[in-house]
């Protein structure tokens, strides 16, 4: 029997995968996708809690997260393109201008 606890566990695993992706991968687009993964993990958690509590507030918040994620996707992809134009690469290890 699948209950709400399983949904939360999935959400936790998704979020962990996202964090691992952000911290470990060097490809900017993969990092970016990992961030999306984390956002959706949060969405899943929100919907689950909404269901648990029996009110819709968290589901409303979920729509906000989607809207912000869409905006973030636009900006993030723009950044990746800018990065590519500058370095002819989207390897994050090479974008270390702050260091020198």
């Amino acid at each position, binding site marked *: 029997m699948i209950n709400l606890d399983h949904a939360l566990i999935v959400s936790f695993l998704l979020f962990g995968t996202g964090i691992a992706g*952000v*911290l470990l991968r060097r490809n900017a687009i993969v*990092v970016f996708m990992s961030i999306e993964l984390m956002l959706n993990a949060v969405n899943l958690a929100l919907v689950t809690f909404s269901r648990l509590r029996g009110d819709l507030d968290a589901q409303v918040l979920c729509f906000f997260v989607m809207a912000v994620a869409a905006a973030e996707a636009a900006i993030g992809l723009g950044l990746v393109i800018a990065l590519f134009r500058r370095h002819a690469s989207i390897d*994050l290890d090479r974008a*270390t*201008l*702050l*260091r*020198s």
Partner: protein
Amino acid sequence: MDFQPFPLILLFPLLGVLANALLGRRLSLRASGGLASLMVFFSFLAAGHGFLTLRDLEPAPGQAPRLVITLWEWIASGDLRVDFSLLLDPLSSAMALIVTGVGFLIHVYSIGYMAHDRDYPRFFAYLNLFMLAMLLLVLGDNFLVLFVGWEGVGLCSYLLIGFWYDRMFTATMSTAQAGQKAFGVNRIGDFGFLIALFLIFTHFHSLRFDTVFAAALHHPASAAVMTAIGLLLLVGAAGKSAQIPLFVWLPDAMAGPTPVSALIHAATMVTAGVYMVARSHVLYALAPVALAAVAWIGALTALLAATIATQQNDIKKVLAYSTVSQLGTMFLGLGSAAFGAGIFHVLTHAFFKALLFLGAGSVIHALHEEQDIRKMGGLRRQLPITFATFLVATLAIAGFPGLSGFFSKDEILAAAFQAQPLLWGMGVLTAGLTSYYMFRLLFLTFFGASRLAPEKAAHLHESPRVMTLPLVALALLSIAGGWLGLPPVLGSHWLGGFLGPVFADLHHLEGGAHGGHLGHATEWMLMGVSTLVALGGFAVAWLRFLKPAALGDLFATPASAWQRLLADKYRIDELYDALVVRPLGRLAGFLWRWIDELLIDGLVNFSGLAVRVGGEVLRLLQTGYVQTYAFFMVLGVIVLLLRLLA
């Protein structure tokens, strides 16, 4: 109150300062000097007008006529209320006339003297500033305005003594150092003066002259406080007026151009102390110990400086020590409660000492900076006007009957005789020495065979008219100046009558202790002694320095130990150097190396270093990798979560 024009006395020199300071570079020598002189002359006219107004006032009986103008409220803080206000009464009026009158003649003379100097606008700006400060000093209505002028003349003396800042004064001392010495020694005096002001304010709750003096008369503080105030004021006066132990700066003050020496020694600066003591006569009358200290300091200074002057060979140095000695005489008069006589001697001394310095300047000018009287001689033929005026001044300062110095000195000596015969004896001895060293100077400079270096003799010339005319004017004043104050047996004492009301508040205080007049016989006797002593000094100088054959031998004979001690000025400079200057220098060195450089600089540098090292360490965290930052963020979130859940 209706309009009073006497603050104009201050305005004109101020205009002169501004004009010469701002536009001086574009003015010719004549325009610059002429403007400065004119401003002082206008100031003199304003002082004259003030004097006439004052004479026509009819004050309450027993009171001195006085005009007070409050220009603005200056300080209002709690108890302390000080206005920037000016006072014209007989004392300040007489001083203002002396300062502007003699100052004007010195300004005119300077136009000739500074003809070859490129920095004349700066010079005349300083001169006018000097006049301004001195006039502020004498016209102030409270101790604080007086103090502003007091500091002002100290500053100007520093600026003017070090006027030729790039020259050496002696082998070991630059003119700038001479200026610093004057300023430093004056600061010691000012320190005493300031503490006296604090004491006055804490006990009388005011700094206005009339309030303080009325309070002191009616609710006197304890004798100890009054004595302390008197002695501290004396410290200030000793600094400004070059008395023991602070006289060492004045002989070095001649590092400046000669007209400056004349201005410092005659019209301004050194008379400030005499004026201040005379102004504070009420405080001194209430503090007999302090008054006696004034007299003794004065008599000792007079004698000490006179003995030094007998062995000096620099024409200006003789005159410098003569000034110290004459100032001592003035203090002797003040200390004998003869305040009017002290001011009288300020007046006559201003005439003949300005004349002596300007005459010496004329000689130095003619000889192209030669100042050693052993290398002069016989100048009376080539410099007739300088010689004639110098002779008048010498007779006046030596106290020959009929000339100004005789009357004022005689009045002081008579007062000293009444106060304390021993002081009188010291004063008479000083007078004899004065006569001796002045005639020595006169004979060595103007009489006998010429001992000039040939190349200097070739260019010998009398000074231009712009320099000789002030000499002549001052010579006339040196002759006639004393007639303002004839002794009772000879006629009326006009100056005493004019100044009298200022000092009148003493009489009912003292019960006429010093007020009793001497008998005529005593007075004739005192005058006779003065005359004899003056003639004695003249005779000794005549015998020693007018026998032509003896002169060369005189310079050749080795000096006795006593003469060497005098020539070295009792080695007082060396003594101060060892006792004060060098220990202070060492203390300053200690503070500099250990406290300042090691401790304070160390603390500052350490904090800088700590920040730098901390930055170097923290810098390691800034890898530039986005993921490192993200890792720390995640770490932070985890820590926060644990903290919340725990």
